[in-house]
């Protein structure tokens, strides 16, 4: 894992905020007093742009958490519309309820039939309330599993889009066995006889994310995050101080680059400077390109090899040591593949 020198991201934030305030004040004064402040404003804005670029170029993990949570980030329905053709949404777990937080669909990618699924976050509050902010109930995971079994029946690849703060922390989700549903999906995905491609596009929140994120290739947008717990939750539990979320974000190694270094993410898909919401088309391009390459590679892999490789891929994730082996000093070892 590479360590990068710490950057004073907080300072940059602070400077930028002050600049933006000052620019605002100048605009108001120019309007109210009919003064021309153009030169002054232009200078400040140039400085702000520089600062922004500096931040964008080397965003801190906490900045990246903010980018991942950006409300206007491309969502599943955007990817569905831009990367796939002949999309037909399918509904329901055939057991209890159709969970709008998790979308499943048939569609074509590069003309080939695939099954697409993912967390179905909305663009605005109304959509998000209707879709429970992309936090599935157990029936959402079971709906995803049904779609994946459909894919398996026909040998179609599964493409899964991960974008959730996590599982739904509600009593009914517990009563209907969300732990069981997540466990079941993880197990079934590890053995599903179809290629599985995963793209982490926004927030990859813990079990609610992993429940649809076990695959042969896990791609991740540059400013997405993927984490075992939210930085806020981590700071609250470990340090009893939710305001240390910024530190937790850094400590958790939740960025795409970190996760690539840790062997968890297979490819980082670069985003436009400042975040995917600034140029959605550019995001679609890198996702399309990434999916295309990996799908092509996976198509050629025989089914048994595919399953063996998938197993080996997860098998080796983790860092353990034999503390007392050979005299007690400890051999550092990757998990045995």
């Amino acid at each position, binding site marked *: 894992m590479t360590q990068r020198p710490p950057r004073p991201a907080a300072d940059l934030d602070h400077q930028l905020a002050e600049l933006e305030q000052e620019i605002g004040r100048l605009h108001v004064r120019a309007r109210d007093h009919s003064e021309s402040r153009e030169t002054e404003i232009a200078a400040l804005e140039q400085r702000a742009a520089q600062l922004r670029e500096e931040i964008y170029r080397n965003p801190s993990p906490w900045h990246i958490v903010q980018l991942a949570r950006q409300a206007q980030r491309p969502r599943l329905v955007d990817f569905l519309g831009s990367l796939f053709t002949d999309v037909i949404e399918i509904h329901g777990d055939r057991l209890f309820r159709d969970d709008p937080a998790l979308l499943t669909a048939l569609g074509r990618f590069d003309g080939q039939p695939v099954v697409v699924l993912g967390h179905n976050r909305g663009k605005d509050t109304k959509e998000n309330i209707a879709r429970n902010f992309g936090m599935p109930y157990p029936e959402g995971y079971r709906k995803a599993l049904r779609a994946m079994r459909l894919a398996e029946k026909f040998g179609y690849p599964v493409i899964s889009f991960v974008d959730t703060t996590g599982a739904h922390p509600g009593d009914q989700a517990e009563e209907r066995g969300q732990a069981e549903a997540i*466990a079941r999906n993880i197990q079934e995905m590890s053995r599903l006889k179809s290629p599985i491609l995963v793209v982490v596009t926004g927030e990859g929140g813990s079990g609610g994310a992993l429940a649809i994120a076990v695959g042969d290739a896990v791609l991740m947008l540059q400013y997405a995050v993927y984490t075992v717990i939210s930085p806020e939750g981590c700071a609250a539990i470990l340090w009893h101080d939710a305001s240390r979320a910024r530190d937790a974000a850094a400590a958790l190694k939740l960025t795409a680059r970190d996760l690539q270094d840790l062997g968890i993410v297979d490819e980082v898909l670069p985003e436009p400077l400042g975040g995917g919401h600034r140029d959605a088309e550019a995001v679609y391009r890198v996702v399309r390109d990434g999916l295309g390459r990996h799908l092509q590679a996976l198509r050629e892999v025989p089914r048994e090899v595919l399953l063996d490789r998938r197993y080996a891929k*997860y098998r080796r994730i983790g860092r353990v040591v034999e503390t007392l082996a050979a005299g007690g000093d400890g051999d550092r070892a990757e998990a045995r593949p």
Partner: protein
Amino acid sequence: MLNWLRRPKYGTVERREMPAGIWDKCPRCRNLIYRKELERNLMVCPKCGYHHRLSAVERLEITLDQQAFQEYDASLTSTDPLGFEGYGAKLAEAREKTGQAEAVITGDGTIDGRRTVVAALDFHFMGGSMGSAVGEKITRATERAVESRLPLVIFSASGGARMQEGVLSLMQLAKTSAAIGRLHEAGLPYLSVMCDPTTGGVTASFAFLGDIILAEPGALIGFAGRRVIEQTIRRKLPDDFQTAEFCLQRGLIDMVVSRAEMRATLARLLAFFGAPRVAPAPEEPAPAAQP
């Protein structure tokens, strides 16, 4: 307690080595119980049936036949892969406290003469949290079961994934579940026993993937925590929410089995599923408590 299990090499266990004659207050019924009586009763309150939490060593001691246990990977432990603030110290503390290198003991042994691979998580070790080492040890044990065509029995007791290892710990859900998936494909039985508490990532992986799922009475079993749920739904949850009995009624587990009956129940299940019978070991005197 039997106190026969070969102790791991790690540190000195001081757990419950108090002077004889001491009394414990039961956390549920508030009665004072004579420690020896509690131990004779497998750490179940004789007044109210409260099942005290056991260490992994205690769990194996009361479950396995004496002398038959062969431990796997006793010295395997998590490193601090993320350089996470305070993690190293916490690990060291947990090791010192429990005498274990990690939050799970794995190995094979026999239960009433039936050979099985077994794992027991230890809630006293960082809340039984699953980091790389717990995931790795569970996975290796599962793979050994497949290789040796043995059943698998896992006693879970865990607060979930070990957040100090970040997504590496989350990925242990995938690693262990994939191994369990292979075990199922190999047609081998897996008995999952949920002890108090079994929550978070461990429920969302191997604990809920048993062919048969057992739980101790009153054990807390659930994915999300009570507090966060109450914040979400803005009302109090019923007392029995996320208990073993609640899960049984909801169809999520097969049976609630008291500690007194657990060993016999596991033995019957292992016999049913055709776990290989081994000749009973010759009677030997129980070893002294500590090496």
